């Protein structure tokens, strides 16, 4: 340590480097967080965010560089040392004990006592005072198992505050919260910020960053890219800094779809056991058809029925005007339909097996001659897909579970692009994927449609549906209740408005349409 860091900085990290094996996770990164501010830490998966958080909460020591908390140098890197200095991390997987009450959890291992005995009443009183001071309306006698996810999170923060936390780390805190809970949490975070807390906030969600953060820092490939007040930077600039290049995935790109010819795919009154119910639709070459609807509207069920994973009970599927046998996935795939399923971890991938094995599974018969796999061709196919889709993996023989969410999803997409289907059905194609991969996946889907494939996208992310779709069908209770053409969307969001405003205007329009059709259905 050369000079004492100014005490005014809550967190002061200088020249932090860290490598794992041969991989340099961080290269000389500086990070300064001021007290009373919310500092957003952004970057793609693998950019070094989690490494820097781990160093800050003492889970791992840096290879070189110095860390100071409120001017006090962190001399040893253990979770206990970090906690002593006032660094607390709010875990995504809650570290509360569900069977104990809120008060018992807050004071776990530090319970107030009278003589040798625990004093639960004192604990409750202290907890109540603490929660009131933080402006949280939770009865400290409630068992944690009865709290909502948002309330659990606030309890956890209250626990950290009671341990004199001065620096709070929140990693994707809203991923399991409802909209109302997010509002609550943000109001709460705002209050503790005013109280002088330094908050380091990690999220992929740009709208949240805009709402809550004062300052942003972007990391890319283990290096510091920029730190700036949120007011001085646009959304596009942030995304560009994260990804390292311009991405226009989030604005809709007008595409010309020729609907004059016969449809590529036609569903006639397709019904499943419960859902879908009598769904009829037409999909043309080069068209991207979005399917919107609330949870339980039957979007995934429709996807599974088309592929035949859940055999339909009535109706028919026509591809190129020819009937596809219903309820036989192999037949649907053979005819040229591919499904990128909702849950990549169980439905899309065999996690324990290699990237190579996963990439070649749907096409294994095509890669075989008289039953024998042509290793050279299979290997070439895998390498080609990895290069084309820019899948980040050191070697195709690594297990697919070692990849980040975005790269795993690219593997699912790649294995089906290799099969060269005519119709691509995507169910939540970018769920749980970082923003860079999200943009790339959106571009890949557009490219597939541009090459003449028909694409159906089911998504709960309205921005994604709006940026991709040429037409959107709204489902409710298993039925298609409304069709929305591009023209209508453009009426909600006139082209001459600011691009960012346009996206939110269009989102609001679609949200409204979904809720309205819910009421009618």
């Amino acid at each position, binding site marked *: 340590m050369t000079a004492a860091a100014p005490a005014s900085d809550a967190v002061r990290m200088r020249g932090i480097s860290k490598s794992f094996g041969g991989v340099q996770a961080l290269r000389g990164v500086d990070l300064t967080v001021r007290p009373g501010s919310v500092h957003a830490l952004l970057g793609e998966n693998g950019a070094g965010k989690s490494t820097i958080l781990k160093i800050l909460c003492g889970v791992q020591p840096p290879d070189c560089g110095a860390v100071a908390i409120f001017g006090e140098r962190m001399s040893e890197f253990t979770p206990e040392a970090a906690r002593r200095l006032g660094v607390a991390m709010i875990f995504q997987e809650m570290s509360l004990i569900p069977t104990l009450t809120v008060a018992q959890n807050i004071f776990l291992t530090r319970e107030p006592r009278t003589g040798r005995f625990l004093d639960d009443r004192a604990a409750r009183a202290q907890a109540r005072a603490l929660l009131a001071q933080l402006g949280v309306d939770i009865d400290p006698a409630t068992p944690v198992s009865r709290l909502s996810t948002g309330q659990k999170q606030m309890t956890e923060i209250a626990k950290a505050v009671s341990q004199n936390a001065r620096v709070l780390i929140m990693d994707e805190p809203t991923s399991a919260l409802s909209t109302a809970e997010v509002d609550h949490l943000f109001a709460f975070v705002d209050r503790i910020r005013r109280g002088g807390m330094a908050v380091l906030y990690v999220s992929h969600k740009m709208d949240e960053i805009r709402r809550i953060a004062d300052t942003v820092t972007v990391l890319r490939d283990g290096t510091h890219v920029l730190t700036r007040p949120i007011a001085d930077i646009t959304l596009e600039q942030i995304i560009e800094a994260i990804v390292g290049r311009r991405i226009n995935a989030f604005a809709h790109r007008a595409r010309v779809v020729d609907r004059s010819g016969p449809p590529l795919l036609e569903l006639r009154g397709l019904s499943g056991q419960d859902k879908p119910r009598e769904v009829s639709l037409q999909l043309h070459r080069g068209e991207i058809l979005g399917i919107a609807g609330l949870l339980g509207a039957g979007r995934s069920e429709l996807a599974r029925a088309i*592929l035949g*994973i859940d055999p339909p009970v009535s109706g028919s599927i026509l591809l190129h005007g020819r009937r596809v046998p219903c309820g036989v*996935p192999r037949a649907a795939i053979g005819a040229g339909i591919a499904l990128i399923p909702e849950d990549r971890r169980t*439905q899309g991938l065999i996690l324990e*097996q*290699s990237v*190579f094995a996963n990439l070649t599974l749907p096409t294994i018969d095509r890669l*075989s001659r008289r039953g024998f796999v042509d290793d050279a061709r299979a290997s070439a196919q895998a390498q080609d897909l990895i290069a084309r889709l820019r899948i980040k993996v*050191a070697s195709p023989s*690594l297990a697919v579970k070692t990849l980040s969410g975005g790269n795993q999803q690219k593997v699912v997409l790649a294995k089906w692009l290799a099969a060269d289907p005519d119709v691509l059905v995507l169910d939540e194609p970018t769920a749980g994927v970082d923003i860079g991969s999200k943009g790339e996946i959106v571009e890949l889907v557009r490219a597939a449609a541009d090459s003449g494939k028909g694409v159906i996208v089911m998504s709960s992310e309205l921005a994604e549906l709006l940026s991709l779709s040429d037409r959107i069908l709204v489902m409710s209770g298993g039925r298609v209740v409304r069709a929305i053409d591009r023209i209508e969307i453009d009426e909600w969001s006139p082209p001459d408005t600011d691009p960012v405003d346009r996206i939110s205007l269009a989102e609001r329009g679609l949200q409204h349409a979904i809720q309205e059709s819910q009421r009618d259905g």
Partner: protein
Amino acid sequence: MAEIVKGAPTGPARRRALPPDWRQYVVYVGFVVIFVVFAVTLRDTGFLDPNNLLNIVRQTTMIAVMAVAMTFVLSAGEIDLSVGAVAGLASVTTAMAIAAGGPVVGVLAGLATGLLVGLINGGLTTRIGMPSFLVTLATLGIARGTAMWISQTAAIPVLSRGFNFTFGSGNLGPVPVLLVWMAVFAVAGHILLRRTGFGRKVLASGGGEVAARYSGVDTAGIKLRVLLLSSLAAAVAGMLYAGRLHSGRFQLGEGDELSVIAAAVLGGTSLFGGVGTVIGTIVGALMIGLINNGLILLGLDFSQQLIARGVIIILAVAIGRQK
């Protein structure tokens, strides 16, 4: 055997990426260690005598043949407990058919026995959705009972010299025919699992049944086929027993299912599917044969052999799993 398990590509990428995970090779190390220990402690009893070593091969072939097929069954996420009983039943049906119609009819009868049980096992598992553990536990009893019943618990002699030579008793020069059988199953099994689309689909079905189905793999068909394969291999093993002992008996193959499953698991095949290696299985089978032989030469009685064998298997698997 990581490349089998994970279906890695050929080419430079493979060499770069494979970490030398010693646990995958524990069966090979264990085999060598046990061999060396026996070679030293049993040097006066003729353990290293070529005849004794060939005897180990002869005693192990039936287990190895069934274990190769079991590798597919386990890799596909299923299990087959009926193999020993099917071997016994096939030895009886083969012997009876040879007496009635000659060796060719005998072989066909043996294979038909395997085919029938395999269809029952596979059909009930994949069409009705019964767990293969229960189905094959039931057919174990049915096959053993049928063998007792039709043979009236008597040994049925096999008098065909040609059959006895081909299925177990013969030697090609210094090489026992049984060694040839083992080698054929090992090579064919290895290629089938490692180099064919079928093998990949087997590993996919066991590694992630849902994802395999979403990928267009007919997982039910694959599971039916591996259970069929297992019963057919058990029938072949039964014929090898019959040829070696010149008779068909209902007791043949009794308890083999445990040795067979142990051989595959020792070799590195996962009981939970998705991971399998035929070469490992063969070494696992030879290791069990080696242990049996060594324990006999050590002069342990049967009860002690059972205990020692159990302990050795637990040790081998535990070492392989230790983190």
